[in-house]
């Protein structure tokens, strides 16, 4: 196989490129890359595009494997990969979704001005750090029975509503209203249940965070107004997923489906792309378990949002006019879902795998809350630590070109070991402090691994998805407080 170079690509536009199906004999569909020429060139430095070509060999894929501009090398699918499979002839692949099932982002808006918050920033950082369990090996303060957890896995965020821990707006303004149908706790191992019980309501470590941000720039006044975002006011992002529960489900099914690959005569270039026909028992079992993990993650972010609200109340009630936090949206970026999309000009239900890619439904799409029907779905793109994050909206073009998908973040360019060699956690902490950002982090080594230098420039990533027409700019958020495990 020839090495992938700029010459491998067919240019579709300044922000869209294609590796034709003829590039490798086992490809079933082309690979479509959404990136500027510069980001495309950067992507040749790791194995992300080779992994996308590998992913394009999965049975039953339709249209193309898509890759977003924040792509980087993962395992199996690249991070930033999107692939849709036919429900009858196609497969479901745990490796196309990842271990942190429904890792995602929630954005909350406030009417608190930066001037009102300024004096309370250290207190708020400490309250968030104290109330939101985070870090390696830090467990939940909940003690759910197995039956209660099984109920929560079926209901997702709605489980929190029943116990008064979610508002109607929280539910409506969550992708799939915080609950995937078809979750089956009977397909989840006892070990996953054990890990799920001990970790529900926790942030975790690594690249997960809670961030208090300032809305600094608005590009679309109407969309920002509808979302409740105002320049000069405070917003909060929560980035986490299904914790050890999802990791265990993926581990269990990647192991179990190794047998299914042989059973159904599927040839794979990488064992991590392990899969099973959607219609098979193995495929259905994985779907039932994966949806439990998706619902767990929606609920996890809901419970953390409540902790964040409690912190805001403790520190700011009586000191600012409106301390309440209203949900803007909650989105998944590692997930597999049945959605209706155009396939060769016809509307069809397919299984969309998104691994490090965000749903970006355009105006008028089914499943959006009424208030977002006209503007399109909010797309949340967190930047690297200490840098800007973006709020975008999905477009009609994303529905036509990328199965309603967009980028999910900045995307790494530097390995963790390289980052630790180049950046000292204490130096980074000092530099961020000088920039006016308050950090609460569990580990200095972990902080160095997540240094902004280890990531692409999120602005360039956003320029690419906007240039490709997959999303529209709404607002920029800049961090004031970062809580990391």
């Amino acid at each position, binding site marked *: 196989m020839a090495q992938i170079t700029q010459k491998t690509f067919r240019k579709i536009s300044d922000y869209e490129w294609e590796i034709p199906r003829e590039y490798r004999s086992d490809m079933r569909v082309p690979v479509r890359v959404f990136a500027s020429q510069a980001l495309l060139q950067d992507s040749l430095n*790791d194995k*992300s595009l080779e992994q996308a070509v590998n992913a394009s060999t999965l049975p039953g894929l339709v249209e193309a494997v898509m890759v977003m501009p924040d792509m*980087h*090398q*993962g*395992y*199996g699918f690249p*991070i930033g990969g999107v692939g849709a499979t036919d429900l009858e002839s196609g497969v479901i692949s745990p490796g196309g979704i*990842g*271990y*942190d099932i429904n890792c995602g982002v929630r954005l909350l808006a406030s009417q608190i001005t930066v001037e009102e918050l300024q004096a309370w920033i250290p207190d708020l950082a400490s309250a968030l750090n104290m109330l939101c369990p985070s870090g*390696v*090996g830090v467990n939940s303060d909940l003690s759910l029975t197995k039956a209660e957890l099984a109920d929560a896995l079926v209901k997702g965020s709605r489980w929190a509503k029943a116990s008064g821990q979610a508002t109607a707006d929280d539910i409506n303004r969550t992708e799939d209203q915080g609950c995937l149908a078809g979750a089956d706790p009977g397909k989840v191992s006892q*070990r996953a249940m*054990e*890990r799920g019980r*001990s970790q529900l309501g926790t942030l*975790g*470590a*690594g690249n997960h965070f809670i961030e208090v941000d300032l809305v600094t720039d608005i590009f679309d006044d109407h969309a920002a107004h509808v979302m409740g975002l105002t320049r000069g006011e405070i917003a909060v992002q929560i980035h986490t997923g299904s914790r*050890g529960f999802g*990791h*265990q489900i*993926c*581990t269990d099914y*990647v*192991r179990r489906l*190794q047998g299914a690959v042989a059973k159904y005569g599927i040839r794979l270039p*990488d*064992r*991590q792309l*392990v899969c099973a026909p959607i219609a098979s028992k193995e495929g259905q079992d994985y779907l039932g378990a994966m949806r439990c993990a998706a619902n767990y993650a929606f609920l996890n972010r809901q419970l953390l949002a409540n902790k964040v609200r409690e912190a805001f109340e403790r520190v700011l009630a009586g000191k600012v006019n409106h301390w309440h936090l209203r949900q803007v949206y909650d989105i998944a970026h590692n997930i597999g879902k049945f959605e209706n999309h155009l396939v060769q000009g016809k509307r069809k239900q397919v299984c969309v795998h998104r691994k490090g890619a965000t749903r970006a439904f355009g105006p008028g799409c089914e499943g959006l809350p009424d208030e977002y029907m006209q503007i399109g779905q909010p797309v949340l793109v967190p930047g690297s630590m200490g840098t800007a994050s973006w709020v975008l909206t999905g477009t009609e073009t994303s529905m036509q070109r990328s199965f309603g998908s967009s980028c999910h973040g900045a995307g*790494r*360019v*530097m*390995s*963790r*070991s*390289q980052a630790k060699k180049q950046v000292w956690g204490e130096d980074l902490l000092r530099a961020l402090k000088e920039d006016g950002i308050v950090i609460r982090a569990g*580990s200095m*080594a*972990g902080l160095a*691994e997540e240094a902004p230098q280890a990531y692409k420039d999120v602005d360039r990533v956003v320029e690419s998805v906007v240039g490709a027409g997959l999303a529209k700019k709404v607002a920029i958020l800049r961090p004031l407080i970062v809580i990391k*495990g």
Partner: protein
Amino acid sequence: MASPGYEEVDHTADIALRVWGKDLQTFLEQAAEGMYDLVGIEFAPDSSIDITFDLQQGPSETILVDFLSELLYLLEERAQVFHTFSFDIGTDQISIRAICSKVLSIDRHIKAVTFHNLNIEKTAKGLEATITFDV
């Protein structure tokens, strides 16, 4: 002290480890040590107890992933770290006995052990493979 049979390999987003050992037992032991090294564990020296657990027999790559996944689970859920392994390799299963210590703290979370391009090869060093961990 013998030099370790593992080294970290660059990977953009996750962590990869090159592991080698003269036979399967040594290879598995080095893989465990390498993974613990990546995690950065502080453990209580006087808390050691013996423990035994079993793995299903199968292809050596599957045994490796099962073995490390078991250790990750015990690390995360029971705060246990193991050393001085002995392996009883049977037809249907592998019984593993090891000395267990209580973990006091860890620096980094590993989510899972992947099968990504996992291929255990016979080389001049014995058995050798690159393992990718999701972090």
